[in-house]
């Protein structure tokens, strides 16, 4: 069993008691509740602990001694009702204040307690005893208090009474008591002025406003995330287009080189060594091109078992120069071997965090190739241009304004 009393109730009882020039007594009002704590540990599945908590909310002092009992300690129920009136059902205990006496229930207190337990119908009625001890020279006065539950055995009668915030509060926060404020004046004032702070549901308006701001911010963040994702996907697509075009350029160069070689051969019958590097790409580039079009699984391009014939690739070259989609079958361009992790591989992150991934290091190398493609770019469908225009790395300025679209290439 645990018990608590609010600081103001405790101080009120002390005030009444200390100002009386004799022993003083009264009743404690409050409620008793049961708390069940279920704990799970390694040793057992679960254990439930039931705790009875007594909360003292208020007190009802008696005007004088023997106000509800006689010399023999016999309780008079009529007088009891006169004192308690409608608060009888809220009685959870009673208290007594006596100076310079032991912290032990007296003979009459035990007699009265037994009767009160029966009359009030509270099996675990508590008794709070205040003792005021003064030293002989009145230099030190101690207020001692003990809470008893006399219904229990002799060695289990004392209950710890806690008073929230009575103690060292410098290192801990001020605890709000769970004891409700039953003051009528307080309720009246709150009712009168509460509308300025509380809405119809009893929730503080400020809280609701703050929550709305929070929700709005959350929505904005979600929207920006969506935009970033889209932007990244577009960028990815554009990257693929750029790679395709690069391949086309390389292929054209190669074609031109071969034509020149044929012309030279025709003019000069001496055999000329054929560059071997030109025979390797057809087999591997197709596969690498396939790999480019599936950005989520960038893998090292390897030679396939049955690579297509070079002539077939050449015949398909002109038809498939214009990148209509990103499907793997449209990859009629001569493949170009690329190492894993090259800047040409788009990032698998759907948010498009691969902001650093751009055309990157190949820019300088292939800048001359882009010059050749100028006429080619003009022939690209309008959609591609739009993609290019939108495909800039998404960046968030400090103000979070995603609508700012400065030119950045």
């Amino acid at each position, binding site marked *: 069993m645990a018990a608590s009393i609010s600081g103001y109730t405790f101080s009120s009882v002390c005030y009444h008691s200390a100002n009386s020039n*004799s022993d003083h007594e009264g009743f404690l009002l409050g409620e008793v509740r049961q708390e069940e704590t279920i704990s799970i540990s390694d040793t057992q599945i679960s254990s439930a602990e039931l705790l009875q908590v007594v909360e003292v909310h208020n007190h009802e002092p008696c005007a004088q001694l023997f106000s509800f009992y006689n010399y023999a300690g016999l309780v008079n129920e009529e007088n009891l009702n006169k004192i308690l009136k409608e608060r009888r059902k809220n009685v959870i205990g009673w208290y007594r204040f006596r100076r310079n006496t032991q912290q032990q229930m007296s003979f009459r207190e035990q007699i009265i307690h037994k009767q009160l337990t029966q009359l009030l119908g509270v099996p675990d009625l508590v008794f709070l005893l205040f003792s005021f001890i003064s030293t002989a020279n009145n230099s030190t006065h101690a207020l001692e208090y003990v809470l008893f539950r006399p219904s229990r055995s002799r060695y289990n009668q004392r209950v710890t009474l806690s008073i929230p915030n009575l103690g060292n509060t410098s290192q801990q926060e001020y605890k709000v008591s769970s004891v409700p404020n039953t003051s009528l004046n307080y309720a009246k004032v709150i009712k009168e002025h509460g509308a300025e702070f509380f809405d119809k549901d009893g929730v503080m308006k400020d809280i609701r406003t703050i929550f709305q701001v929070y929700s709005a911010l959350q929505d904005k963040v979600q929207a920006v995330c969506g935009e970033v994702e889209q932007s990244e996907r577009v960028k990815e697509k554009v990257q693929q287009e750029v790679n395709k075009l690069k391949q086309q350029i390389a292929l054209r160069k190669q074609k031109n080189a071969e034509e020149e070689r044929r012309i030279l051969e025709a003019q000069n019958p001496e055999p000329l060594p054929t560059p071997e590097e030109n025979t390797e790409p057809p087999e591997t580039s197709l596969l690498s091109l396939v790999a480019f079009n599936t950005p989520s699984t960038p893998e090292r391009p390897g030679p396939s078992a049955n690579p297509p014939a070079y002539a077939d690739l050449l015949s398909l070259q002109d038809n498939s120069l214009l990148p209509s989609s990103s499907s793997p079958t449209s990859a009629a361009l001569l493949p170009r071997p690329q190492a894993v992790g090259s800047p040409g591989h788009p990032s698998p992150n759907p948010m498009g965090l691969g902001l650093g991934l751009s055309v990157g290091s190949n820019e300088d190398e292939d800048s001359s190739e882009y010059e050749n493609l100028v006429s080619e770019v003009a022939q690209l469908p309008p959609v591609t241009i739009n993609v290019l225009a939108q495909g800039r790395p998404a960046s968030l300025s400090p103000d979070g304004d995603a609508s700012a679209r400065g030119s950045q290439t």
Partner: protein
Amino acid sequence: MNNMSPEVALNRISPELRPLLCSVVRNGRVGLDSTNCLRITDLKTGCTSLTPGPCCDRFKLHIPYAGETLKWDIIFNAQDPELPPDFIFGEDAEFLPEPSELPHLVQWDAEDPECLLQLVKELIQQYHQYQCHRLRESSRLLFEYDSLLEDPDYGRSLEIYAGHKNSWTGEFSARFLLKLPVDFSNIPVYLLKDTALDPGEDVALLFVSFEDAEATQVFPKLYLSPSIEHALGGSSALHIPAFPSGGCLIDYVPQVCQLLTNKVQYVIQGYHKRREYIAAFLSHFGMGVVEYDAEGFTKLTLLLMWKDFCVLVHVDLPLYFPRDQPTLTFQSVYHFTSSGQLYSQVQKSYPYSPRWDGNEMAKRAKPQFSATRQAFCSGLVIK
């Protein structure tokens, strides 16, 4: 504070409560051990510290009971002196008397100075019943109690204190305090101590301590009023037998009673015997009597003359006369010793029989005096 005299304590009590405390402190004798008065200590007040004194209204009352001292807190309210007090029964937290059996509480009358004392006596009675109830924890000790209770001589004057030696562990023990039904009224007044100093009742209490529930360690003790102890020859003159192993109180107590009674009878008889002896010597020696103890009849001085030679004879009668033989001391009226004292000679052994009456002893004393006187005088001549 704990050793303050009753008058000092009374002066600190609130004036409205003082009459009640007076009868407790001055006349308060409860229980069997009426030689010890009730005592109050630890006077405190229930008023604020600003209240001018004297305003003490709560104190500790020390009550002798069954060889122990009960310390009960009594709580009044000086601001409401007409209200009855409350009690805290010290270590006996489980003692809860029935209020309806305390008439002086139910009809408390603050105007009656004896009310508090009577209430305390009623509480002691309830406390006694409570202790007897606790004896049920040991069937052996309960038997002791029940057997004593059946005997009207002992059952009415019995105090019991039962319980464990300490609250948690310890053997169950009990103490019995019995008032022995011995008649001391015939003891000559002179034998008793100065009654002005000890005006209490003459009483003999037998205190028996059972240190375990099976009565294997039993220690009896006899307590006598100071006057009775003096009359019987002091604490060393009386020894009670040890408690027999396997014995019980209903057999042992009458034994002690008889022993004490015999002793008292012996002392009374001795007194009468001495008086008879002195009367006989007065009759036989008439004018030769110089002086005698007319109260206790323990001393007699005679002046004997033989051929103009005077000798003083002092006769000292012991407490347990006639069992113990009187001592004769012959003293010269002429001769001094080197230390300046009158020359004397003591004679303890001479023909004597305790069965002789006083007259017979006086008759036989004459030839004895003659024989001894001759030898005494011869001795003086030689010196």
